[in-house]
């Protein structure tokens, strides 16, 4: 029976996709960027809050933290509302042009960590 279980475990290992990626896998951590400008749209939603920020070059979609964490750290829906100016430090997506995941954001002179 032991050998059969080993075979089962091997099958699982083969079927399971590579786990080389981590939580921020599709973001380029080697190329951190800072995106600053007015917030043009804001979604305070699960699983992640997102805003779009207009810079001179383009409109960036900035992926933030889950709403519960945002709220706990003082980044409420009002704080990231449309019209506010946000500076977001983070990493650009390698999968989607113009999307980034924020490590930390600064709004109203307040800096809040996203993880």
């Amino acid at each position, binding site marked *: *029976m032991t050998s*059969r*279980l080993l*075979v*089962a475990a091997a*099958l*699982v290992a083969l*079927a*399971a*996709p590579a*786990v080389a*990626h*981590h*939580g921020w*896998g*599709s973001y380029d951590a080697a190329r951190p960027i800072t995106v600053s400008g007015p917030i043009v749209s804001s*979604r*305070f*939603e*699960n*699983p992640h809050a997102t805003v779009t920020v207009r810079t001179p070059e383009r409109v960036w979609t900035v992926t933030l933290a*889950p*709403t*519960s964490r945002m*709220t706990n750290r003082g980044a409420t829906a009002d704080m990231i509302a449309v019209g506010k100016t946000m500076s977001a430090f983070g990493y650009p997506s390698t999968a989607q042009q113009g999307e980034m995941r924020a490590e930390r954001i600064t709004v109203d002179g307040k800096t809040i960590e996203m993880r």
Partner: protein
Amino acid sequence: MEHAATDLFSALEHSAWGATIRQSVWLYPFANIGHVVALVLFAGALAVMDLRLLGAFAATRPADVVGPARTAALVAFLLMVLTGSVLFTAEASHLAANPVFQLKVALIALGLLNVLAFQTVAARSLRALPAGARLPTAARATAMVSLALWLAVAACGRSIAYF
């Protein structure tokens, strides 16, 4: 056809129910935690059932173990479908296009076909089997496939967020 499916998932995501899930403070985390807790119950019940079919717990009558374990697995599976549908609705269009999610759904379909195979070729032969008896090959085979498939489903589930 593919276009119609994409529209359908987009409509689901942008439905009032989809918005409710995303905007609720507790609904998404509740479904998220519930999905994992249901998985723990499912994997536990599944392991008991499949290990018995592979020859473990030999002092028991197979039917005495497999029957209740299957019921527990079924309840847990329904909980997973329920909580999973909430998680899916919140991000339907992204998830439907996610290759790992697609793999997961395909593996679930295979897992359910395997349940059908067990039911058809193995279930009947177990009923009268005494403790310590050698398990029929069909029962062992479906149990092994079951373990491999459902653990792979779990691995896919955990990997969706990383692809």
